């Protein structure tokens, strides 16, 4: 195929949003097959229903130790007082003039706490905690917010079942479908 033909195929895709009904277009096909082991190493995201959660477990008590060592300097004693984002409290403030958005008052999914802490925290050493440490510090933050009990164990089964208090206050706007240009 000439460059011109290839570009015509590409234009078909770009301008007309795919030429429905035509034969599959020719593309360079330069991706190499990813192995399951490679994917497992890269895939760190957790779905809101818990898919992707790893093995391991932790309790609020275990998490308190992790928090004191790895988080408190930035997020304050028991998740309040900063200097960085407040992680605890604020329930009942969202409709006020000074809403306080925290894991406890605002976040719709508990799985997000695990996903985010594992990918991004502690700020200066992301990806340094073990999965059980992430479960533990997640459990600690959920317990400080009064969402789970002090003895509750967080793991791949229990974490997705935690119902966050503000979950039902999110209105999902139907994703807008752009016009084809």
């Amino acid at each position: 195929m000439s460059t011109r033909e290839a570009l015509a195929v590409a234009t078909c895709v770009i301008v007309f949003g795919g030429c429905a009904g035509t034969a599959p277009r020719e593309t360079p096909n330069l991706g190499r097959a990813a192995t399951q082991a490679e994917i497992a190493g890269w895939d760190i995201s957790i779905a809101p229903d818990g898919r992707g959660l790893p093995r391991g477990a932790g309790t609020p008590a275990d998490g308190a130790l992790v928090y004191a060592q790895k988080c408190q300097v930035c997020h304050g004693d028991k998740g309040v007082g900063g200097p960085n984002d407040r992680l605890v409290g604020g329930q009942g403030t969202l409709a006020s003039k000074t809403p306080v958005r925290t894991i406890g008052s605002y976040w719709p999914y508990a799985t997000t706490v695990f996903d985010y802490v594992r990918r991004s925290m502690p700020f200066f050493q992301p990806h340094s905690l073990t999965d059980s440490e992430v479960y533990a510090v997640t459990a600690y933050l959920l317990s400080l917010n009064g969402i789970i009990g002090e003895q509750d164990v967080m793991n791949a089964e229990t974490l997705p079942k935690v119902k966050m208090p503000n979950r039902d206050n999110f209105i999902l706007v139907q994703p807008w479908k752009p016009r084809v240009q």
Partner: protein
Amino acid sequence: MRPRRRDRRFDDARDAAGNGVLDRRAFLRGGAGAVATGAFMAYAPSDASAASPPETPSGMTTPGAPLSPYGSPATFEREVTRTLIRSQPGTTGAGASRTPLEALEGMITPSGLHFERHHNGVPTIDPAQHQLLIHGMVARPLIFTVASLQRYPMESRIHFLECSGNSALMYGATPPTLTCGQTHGLVSCSEWTGVPLRLLLEEAGVDPRADWVLAEGADAAAMSRSVPMAKAMDDAMLALYQNGERLRPENGYPVRLFLPGYEGNMSVKWLRRIKVTDTPTMTKDETSKYTDLRADGTSLMFTYPMEVKSVITRPAPGLKMTGPGLYELSGIAWSGRGKIRKVEVSADGGQTWAEAVLAAPVLAYALTRFRIAWKWNGAPTVLKSRATDDAGRVQPTRDELIAQQGANVVYHYHAIQAWRVESTGEVKNVYA
């Protein structure tokens, strides 16, 4: 400059709106170049009434600077920088820097002045090491090198990028006393060149039950956002070039996602992974952040397109008017829902309006430059601009916007901006 001729022409020009806004064709009549230059001068931050330069300036009597491998702005422009650089306490790369809008003209933002919003700094990525994984609900999970992406058919598009939190201080009870760029400079516009994401998704073979993709960056925040499949398959691009050169590190080198019209946070930089999924992943930056908390305590989620918006950039806070006379009002307008259809300008606080000239090209999801002539009588007044897009959406007033959603939203602020011009020539941000 020929001030006498200029004056005569403008005496002839019909008023298009109250308080000296002139017919929009005023500058377009004969000899416009010279006139426009004269008007631009009025916005120079410093007074230009110095003594005449020598007849033979030193630059004409000695050879100039040597050829150089990579150019940079004139040393006299060193104050034109990104502005209001702020990071979270104790950090240096979790925050934003803003485009100095009042110092720029045209529709393109120089790459070095493109605003920044990072969540944990700018990673250093060797393109020879970087790879992009596409996996999840696909028939063939694939890994692409950067070199392989460069062999795909590319497209080039001029698009704005606006942080969802741009202008957020305008939700506050009192107007910020900052420059135009410090208040509204989380928007920039570039020519982006890259590979349509759709081509790669089709090679991987998307499961028809998949409705979303998760995009993840290779930075220390592993920034991640869910994107509707409809957008991924429509005009989403894997951008490799910005304004003709490879992406700047701050803009996602070596490859970023680019989603025209959508809030900037979703155009994930340093892209390393696309996971095809059936549901949104509900990452931190689409739940805790980038959701719109309304007055009643409920929040809107997935409010993606940036709404129709405009701002006058000259004059604006950061620039000073230099006495009564003829000026050109200049500004930018944009909409995440399409093209700008018109921009109206008022020089009497919104009582009367006139349509500004839109500078070609007027493109979908791009900054559009508007201009109109204004004869300032030296009295204090309030300037405003109001944009309408091709979907017929009109920029609301601040009161209308806040009445609709409350003042706790943080994101998607796009109300009409009012600048008060004082008789001293100072320009201030006001709620009016």
